[in-house]
């Protein structure tokens, strides 16, 4: 059974690398946001698999915490962009008024 977990975790690690690559090269901000989100999800999975691999499935609640935090992070980013978008619109309007 162990090698299944091991293989799975390696596969997850590879997807983590892919997420990092996307986060690094961008090019748009949305790529990066999605990369962070995906990376968070993969970390949750990785933790879950590792806790089975190490024989201590009681650590699953850690993964739960990660999932919750990840969600909040993404919402914070959304809010940031919303306010930035409105701010830019307002600035454009102000420019146009002048």
């Amino acid at each position, binding site marked *: 059974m162990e090698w299944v977990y*091991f293989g799975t*975790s*390696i596969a997850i*690690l590879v997807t*983590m*690398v892919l*997420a*990092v690559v996307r*986060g*690094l090269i*961008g090019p748009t*901000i949305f790529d*990066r*946001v999605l*990369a*962070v989100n995906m*990376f*968070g999800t993969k*970390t949750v999975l*990785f*933790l879950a698999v*590792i806790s089975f*691999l190490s024989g201590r499935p*009681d*650590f699953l*609640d*850690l993964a*739960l*915490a*990660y999932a*919750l*935090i*990840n*969600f*909040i*992070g993404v*919402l*914070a*980013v*959304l*809010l*940031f962009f*919303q*306010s*930035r978008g*409105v*701010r830019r619109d*307002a600035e454009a309007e102000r420019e146009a008024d002048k």
Partner: protein
Amino acid sequence: MITIVFSLFLLTMLVIVAVGILRTDNLFTAVMLSGIFSLIMAANFFILDAADVALTEAVIGAGISTVLFLGALALTAEYDRSPPVGTWVPLLTSSALGGVIIFATLQAPRLGDPNAVVHKHVAPWYLDRTPELIDVPNVVTAVLASFRGYDTLGEVFVVFIACIGVMSLLGRVRPRRDSIEEDEFDKRTDNLRHHLIPRVVGKMLVPFIVLFGLYVQFHGDFGPGGGFQAGALIAAGVILYSLLEGGPRGRELVPEWFSSLLVALGAFTYTCVGVVSMAMGGRFLDYSVLSHDPVHGQHMGILIIEAGVGMTVTGVMITIFHAFSRRGIR
């Protein structure tokens, strides 16, 4: 062996991400990447058998810290416009530093070496004696709350002072914002009320996050967790509510006087436990004297001080978040 393979993967990623942070001039990207940095770090802590630290790093490093950085970015600037300064001195300093460390650690014990000195001296004592002296399964909690409870007291005061500092720096609202237009502008931008899906899903999650926080608080003796992680999680629940419904509503849910009272009260509770144990004839923070049975006394002491820690951290994180969000948008 497995640990080493995973470590190789994660640590290499860590360095790549760090270089990415260094190279980008978009501060938003840097903050996003530092979120990834924290997550990798946390996963790495987890495979190094540090479950409590992994939980803390994820909640504080990837969660709270990202939110704070974003809050600060919204109030300052989005791009790093540093000129290409002469990079010789920093480059030399940091390479010298790295060189010295690599030179020094060539003789260090390898990862996981059971004969390393760190595993021989103090640590076995903690592992052997905790069941008998304190009787909680989580040795990290035992060391944190009792054997090195004085450190933890200091740590509570560190977050306390950070909260005080942020409040005295950002507490007073900037006087410049008097136009109704700007208020209107704030109302449109500081919440996600118009986005149905995040709003519904998010609001459903809030009670669960708080509940989970309470679980982490009181389960800290048995599994990974404790006051710090719980405090940060509960605060994260409140922060989520404020993100969805906007700052003013968030401050209605947890008023500012309440959160700052929580901060002081938590630190006060912790110190009081110490003072009471002094009054009852023990040393400062000696919980054994709190009850007739020393082990029972330890349990009681740990429960109370962890509650104090949880209160302070919850209060601090909420207060700091509100201080940033209330500062408004230029």
